[in-house]
């Protein structure tokens, strides 16, 4: 029987929740990296036991952790225990070294971005928000970082190099941080086209490459953001999350700061599909594993009231690719619930009956084994959940 492994990143460590395919009884492992912020943990689609974790701290900076045994043991790539130096005695570890590219002509910073006060500001590395393992190579991983940039490793996390065509394509000086920082938080790889990658940045918008990361273009046409001076600007939109079904060539779904959006042409243009949602503010959005037109969101009241409307935690499902939404409430608290669900904290498994999972800032991780019809908490009292990923294991 198949199994599932849910990887949960929290404010104070990582947890792994495992179950068989019935998804009724769960084993909870953790905390791993206790006391550290774990922004994201994700496994390789090629090698399910290869996991990567982003471990960060305001005190000690960024750490990248890797497991080759499904999360039982961990190491910082390039520094396995007992093998801390090269034969020449030189330090090896550069797994946490994220250095922005500079201009090859001048040797100066590639670009600057707009700071909160409107002045231009240099890029400064803060942390890794999102790790996206390659669909074909367990040693290749993309990292979305703050300040916004895309990095890639091709040696299993030992070293990271920027795909600087993204920052260098020309709109960088108009990017600006949201209150949570200027972060590249979404990376979507296209299984049908290895050269195509979608990314999203708060608050710059969505971008696409069709040549594996060398060149990039903004894909924000159709987004309307009333909170910026030009609501239809080419960049400056606060995109919260993009989701795509693996089988879809060009259909994308987006939860923006406000508005749920859909694109039928790979992001070249977007249409609003918020429909009858009680509020179209939110962070997460995901697609059913087997139904490309079935999508899930968790509406949040507003950009200054980060909790569900009316104290009712409701997942909304559309079976029509947007516009028509139904509230899913069975098993979810329907009174006095004031948690948030952050952008990386929803995932789906690929079992026959699609499982849906999400985590809250209140430390609950909810699971549905029937595509959202009913829910139950796997755990109730973790630290605030930052990210949820799930792997379907043989």
């Amino acid at each position, binding site marked *: 029987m198949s199994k599932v492994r849910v990887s949960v990143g929290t404010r104070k460590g990582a947890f792994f929740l495992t179950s068989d395919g019935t998804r009724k009884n769960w084993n909870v492992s953790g905390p791993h990296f206790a006391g550290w912020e774990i922004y994201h943990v994700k496994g390789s689609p090629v090698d399910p036991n290869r996991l990567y974790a982003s471990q960060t701290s305001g005190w*000690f*900076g960024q750490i990248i952790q890797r497991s080759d045994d499904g999360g039982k043991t961990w190491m910082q790539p390039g520094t396995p225990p007992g093998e801390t130096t090269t034969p020449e005695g030189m*330090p090896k*570890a*550069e797994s946490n070294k994220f250095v922005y590219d500079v201009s090859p002509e001048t040797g100066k910073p590639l670009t600057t971005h707009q700071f909160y006060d409107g002045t231009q500001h240099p890029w400064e590395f803060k942390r890794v928000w999102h790790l996206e393992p390659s669909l074909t190579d367990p040693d290749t991983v993309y990292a979305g970082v703050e300040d916004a940039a895309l990095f890639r490793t091709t040696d299993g996390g030992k070293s990271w190099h920027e795909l600087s065509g993204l920052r260098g394509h020309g709109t960088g000086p108009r990017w600006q941080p949201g209150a949570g920082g200027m972060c590249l938080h979404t990376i979507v790889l296209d299984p049908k086209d290895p050269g195509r990658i979608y990314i999203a940045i708060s608050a710059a918008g969505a971008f696409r490459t069709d040549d594996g990361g060398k060149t990039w273009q903004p894909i924000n046409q159709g987004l309307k953001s009333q909170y910026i001076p030009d609501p239809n600007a080419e960049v400056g939109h606060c995109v919260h999350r993009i989701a795509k079904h693996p089988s879809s060539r060009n259909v994308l779904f987006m939860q923006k700061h406000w508005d749920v959006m859909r694109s039928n042409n790979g992001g070249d243009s977007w249409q609003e599909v918020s429909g009858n949602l009680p509020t179209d503010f939110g962070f997460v959005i995901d697609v059913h594993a087997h139904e490309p037109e079935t999508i899930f969101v968790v509406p949040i009241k507003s950009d200054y009231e980060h909790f569900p409307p009316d104290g009712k935690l409701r997942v909304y499902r559309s079976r029509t690719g947007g516009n028509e939404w139904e509230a899913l409430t069975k098993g979810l608290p329907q009174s006095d619930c004031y948690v948030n669900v952050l952008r990386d904290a929803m995932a789906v498994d690929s079992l026959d009956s699609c499982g849906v999972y999400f985590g809250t800032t209140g430390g609950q991780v909810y699971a549905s084994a029937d595509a959202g019809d009913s829910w139950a908490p796997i755990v109730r009292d973790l630290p605030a959940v930052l990210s949820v990923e799930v792997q379907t294991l043989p």
Partner: protein
Amino acid sequence: MIRVVLPPHLRALAHVDGEVQVEVAGPATQRSILDAIEVRYPMLRGTIRDHVTQERRAFLRFFVCQEDWSLEPPDAPLPDAVSSGAEPFLVIGAIAGG
């Protein structure tokens, strides 16, 4: 042998318990001690000093003989008590919480 006291999180990363000890060629300074720490425990590179600028991370300070050396030049010789091992070199993180 120079004694170094690391914060608990860094001891966990380095897979050590308690104090660590390093040898330093020449005079003991902040830089020479931290260089030696990073050679012996390369997983700590970038966690005490920035990878590129080599500047002390903002929430950390260095203490010796109950004195704050954080703002002293990194190549300033430390007291003999550090070189002799009588006193440890302390890496201390800002107190969490409020």
